[in-house]
């Protein structure tokens, strides 16, 4: 391996930048593009570059649980999306070692016409299991989701809570080595939330690396052994959760959301 980093470092970002373009108007219809070619070209030229992340370098070690905090539009979600492979980087280098399970949106890709069982299997394969592994995990997933007989019903009959429960159950049962969590735990009833946190705690003890984006600073303090403060697309602080949270809370003005930054979520 030519990498200077040890195998213990499972997520490595080196000078990662992510640029999005903001267009004054959304010109994507064929008719408009053809009929108003000059406008189309102008609109494309008038696009504004917006850097959601700027020169971010950080490493996460195996088994660490890291909380990402920061104001809205700071680049937290962009960071998770980049690590999950969903967003290509504009600049820099990213290395990820291990199976990533992104809990960005639970149950993305569930098909309402199919039953919970079939959906769970497809979802688990999408998240990286083989079909055989998915089938083996199915009883556990069904039990954890507490769906009972509903597991054999088409998912259009599910309540939103049931949807999320199955989504979470699949996501945590694909034996992730790296779990990315983006605010999704604010869903479901209190008891199920408790259960989710217990399960994440268990994964943590099993040395699963966890990156958690949260606005719940208490959660971050309680759960994480490291916190990273992101603001305006750069790492503003990185260290012990208590210290980073204090720094975040004590900063008087600097963390107001810049107007342009709102567009990234």
């Amino acid at each position, binding site marked *: 391996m030519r990498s200077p980093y040890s195998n213990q470092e499972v997520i490595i970002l080196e000078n990662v*930048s992510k640029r*999005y*373009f903001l267009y004054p108007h959304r010109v*994507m*219809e*064929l*008719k408009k593009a053809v009929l108003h070619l000059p406008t189309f070209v102008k609109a494309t030229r008038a696009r504004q570059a917006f850097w959601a992340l700027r020169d971010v370098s950080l490493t996460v070690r195996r088994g660490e649980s890291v909380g990402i905090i920061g104001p809205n539009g700071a680049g937290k979600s962009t960071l998770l*999306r*980049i690590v*999950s*492979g*969903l*967003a*290509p*980087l*504009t*600049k*820099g*280098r*990213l*290395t*990820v*070692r*291990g*199976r*990533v399970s*992104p809990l*960005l*949106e639970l149950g*993305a*890709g569930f*098909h309402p*016409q*199919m039953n919970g069982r*079939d959906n769970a*299997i*497809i979802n688990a*394969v*999408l*998240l*990286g*299991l*083989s*079909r055989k592994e998915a089938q083996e995990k199915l009883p556990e997933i069904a039990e954890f989701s507490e769906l009972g007989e509903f597991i054999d019903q088409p998912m259009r009959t599910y309540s939103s809570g049931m949807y999320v429960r199955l989504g979470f159950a699949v996501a945590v049962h694909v034996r992730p*080595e*790296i779990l990315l969590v983006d605010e999704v735990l604010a869903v479901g009833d209190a008891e199920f939330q408790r259960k989710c946190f217990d399960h994440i705690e268990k994964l943590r003890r099993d040395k699963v690396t966890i990156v958690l984006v949260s606005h719940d600073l208490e959660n971050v303090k309680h759960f994480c052994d490291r916190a990273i403060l992101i603001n305006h697309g750069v790492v503003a602080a990185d260290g012990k959760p208590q210290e980073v949270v204090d720094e975040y809370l004590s900063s008087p003005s600097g963390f107001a959301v810049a107007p342009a930054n709102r567009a990234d979520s």
Partner: protein
Amino acid sequence: MAAASSASYAGSLERLNLRGVARTWELLLLLTARDVKLRYEGTVLGLLWTLAKPLLQALVFSFALSTVLRIRVGSDAPYVLFLLAALFPWTWFQASIQSSAASFSNNAALLKKVYFPRFVLPLSAVTSQLLHFALSIPILVVLLVIAGYYPRPTWLLGLPLLTAIQLLMLAGAVLLVASFNVFLRDLEHLVEVLMTLWFYLTPILYPLSLVEERLGAVIYLNPMAPLIQAWRNLFLYDQLPGVEIWPALVFTALALLAGSITFKTLEGQFEVAL
């Protein structure tokens, strides 16, 4: 901007290793099964529609063309057989392209939230239509036997050969169409109209000889013409395709090349456009 960027996923989002290939294959099978399962969900006849639809369509066409318009195909086979031998493979072609055009744009939620080999989405439309096509072949065989045409061993070579050509051609074509459709939703509607035109430009309802004299070499601009002709010659006359199929081969190569390049180039922009 020539910014250097790279992302590597050691062992996670397996891109090229064996495990990754196996998983992609399984995903393709699962999505194909889902597609087949859901297609006739809630209908009484279910999967039987796969067979009933092209048959009924053939009856309508043969009534219109052979009874009303009295077209002469110059074939000793009954018109229905002449038609079905071309209509079944064409249906696979047309239905694949139409149902896959929106396969990226209709799965925005999935594409934005989970990383997986995305090309399986349009490909699963092709494979599920291939399954429907495969199921329709026994119907054709039964009808052929009734009319006194018996399949010969040449089918064992001809079927996989023509299937492979059309499968590869479709793989390239759907990647191209589905990728562009993310940015230009008009395409899925345009494709629908163009496929109807293409249907009439291809010798399905009529024999190639009907237009051969008037159009001459122009026919070879339509890669589906020799391919459909090859299907028909195989089903009706047990003939293997010869060199005249070259336009289909050229088109297949071009479609694969254009499809994979387009997909590779545009995939990175999906997250912004969807």
